[in-house]
């Protein structure tokens, strides 16, 4: 290797030109109005109760723990769960909605707000945060998925790095399936930095098809289900 490096901008520009020219030569004059009609499967409509049952059953099948609770009881439920897991610290996002819950936690539990930049705090985040609490935007019944819409108050790593993830899910924001959710909320118009659908704790079957939980992300996903 010589010291002079190829100019990757020029390489990319040339490649771009060549690739697009080759592809365009093939589709030149194509009439896109004549494409065949795509017909989606007509899924049956489910009642709210059926959707809820499906949502819970899918989550539990994927080893998530679903706890039906109320806003007032949430602090107590989290405290109990943390005690059972022998965890005394909870990381949470700067979300007004959480303040009451955090204030209501058992006083043996230290709560830490995620108000720091990850840049100089990776070691701490990875090694000193055993559990986290996050909110969610909505959820999907068909696949038992919870939609997280991270922002500056609830960073992406909040629901990823700590080994136990508590997530608050409002049963009133349950959609039948992913397709109807995207349409209803017109996602194509405005998406945040990152959206993630979570359907259970982290898992893998990479060794001899044997399912193991807690691969890289949370080992436990505890769903606090409100407004049932």
């Amino acid at each position, binding site marked *: 290797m010589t010291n002079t490096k*190829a100019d*990757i901008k020029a*390489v990319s520009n040339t490649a771009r030109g060549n690739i697009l020219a080759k592809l365009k030569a093939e*589709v030149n004059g194509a009439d896109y109005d004549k494409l065949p009609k795509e017909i989606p499967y007509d899924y049956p409509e489910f009642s709210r109760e059926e959707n809820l049952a499906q949502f819970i059953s899918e989550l539990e099948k994927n080893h998530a723990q679903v706890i039906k609770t109320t806003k007032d009881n949430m602090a107590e439920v989290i405290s109990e769960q943390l005690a059972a897991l022998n965890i005394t610290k909870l990381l949470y996002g700067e979300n007004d909605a959480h303040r009451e819950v955090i204030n209501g936690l058992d006083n043996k539990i230290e709560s830490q707000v995620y*108000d720091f930049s990850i840049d100089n705090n990776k070691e701490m985040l990875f090694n000193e945060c055993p559990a986290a609490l996050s909110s969610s935007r909505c959820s999907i019944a068909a696949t038992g998925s919870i939609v997280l819409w991270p922002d500056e108050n609830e960073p992406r790593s909040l629901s990823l790095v700590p080994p136990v993830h508590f997530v608050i899910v409002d049963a009133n924001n349950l959609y039948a399936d992913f397709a109807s959710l995207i349409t209803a909320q017109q996602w194509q118009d405005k998406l945040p930095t990152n*959206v993630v659908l979570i*359907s259970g704790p982290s898992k893998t079957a990479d060794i001899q098809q044997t399912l*193991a939980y807690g691969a*890289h992300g949370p080992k436990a996903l505890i769903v606090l289900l409100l407004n049932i």
Partner: protein
Amino acid sequence: MKHIIEEESKYAASAKAFRANVTRDLGNEELRSNFRGAMDYLMDKRKGAFSSEDELEVLREQCKLIKQRCLAKLPHLLEQLEGNLEKNGIKVHWAETITEANEIIAQLIAQKKGKSVVKGKSMVSEETALNDYLEERNVECLESDMGEYIVQLAKEHPSHIIMPAIHQNKKQVAKLFADNIEGFEYSTDVDTLIQQGRTVLRDKFCQADVGISGVNFAVAETGTLCLVENEGNGRMCTTIPDLHIAITGIEKVIEHLADVPPLLSLLTRSATGQAISTYFNMINSPRKPGEKDGPQEVHLVLLDNGRSQAFADEELRQTLQCIRCGACMNHCPVYTRIGGHAYGTVYPGPIGKMISPHMLGLDATSNLPTASTLCGACGEVCPVKIPIPKILLRLRQESVKPKSQQPEVMKGQGAGRNNVEALIWKVWAQVHKSPKLYALSMWGLTRFRFLMPKKLGGWTSVRTAPKPAAATLHERIKSKQSQHGRG
């Protein structure tokens, strides 16, 4: 300006060695039992995921049409994708060859003075042999998908596109860990093994300066990179390091966000029988001001590497409909027996036999399309209805077409052509066109049948030699008729 010196894919040589690889792996009983067990498991899982045959068929037809539409508009969608990604702050790079892609990535890392990379699962980066390229430039590259981590430790490459370490059983993984990870005490308990991998890799996520991932769907309409995964390593690679580089083939672009749900549903169900993967990660931009995590820079490298060649032929274009679920290999009787490494290519099984000739040329891969019984199982399970057996037949034709015949559809056209074989077929065709010649040849074949050699090359290595009958069928029928006539 210095030009990039194109390097040949290391997989060209291993693909050429296909026949030797097959002999080697067919004789490995442990390997065969590992694959048999894994394929039975995966076929079973898929079957359980489609309770309604009707839904499956409607979804397959819909997804086939979605992918065909997106391919019909491919150049325009790539431009739209680029525009929207750039608007979102994600930089886009284009590469025609694997070396171009590797060099772009190497320089992006060098610009940031990156020293250590964690990789999510990316088959396209396997295609470019990115790890080798970066390691030659003193950048440490660690695979973080559990299966990929195992094959990297074993200095192998994935034997399956979804489950990379499927060729190893837990005893082999336990031994690998004991030999390579300090302080690991031999155990065949899968939970213990996974927790060991977790411990090693979490440290690396925490320290790495660069994350590299693949892409399952790139949405043109919104400029979104979608990743499908169960482990969380994909999220780690794309969230924790300061620099995220995604690499994907140009065929992964889809037009609308609304195209995602049906494709995603078929992808996970066809691959592992899951209704959805644990994580579905949609990346739209680098970290925005005020946000506390996420990479400061996100780049996407779009790779051609032979895809535009497949695109140029209407029939072969269907190859690019593939969403990389792996169902074709799970259901392939050949793959199940010879395993993933025998193919010698990055992509094994039916999809590998279809796509590798475009990437490596027919010179290196002319044997691959012949490694099929044409039983049709792959085409039947393909979620986007690629007529795989038909395409394999077409590739066989391309590989034996005279080198000079125009138009040249594929690189390496005629590489599988054998003049003796071509002559035999020519004579065969002549004989079958003329009733007189046919009768004469049959007469000769039956009368001189004692001249049939006992050894007929490859044919008799696993079979007894064919023995022509004493009389032709025509003769026997005639003689029967005359007997009846007499009676």
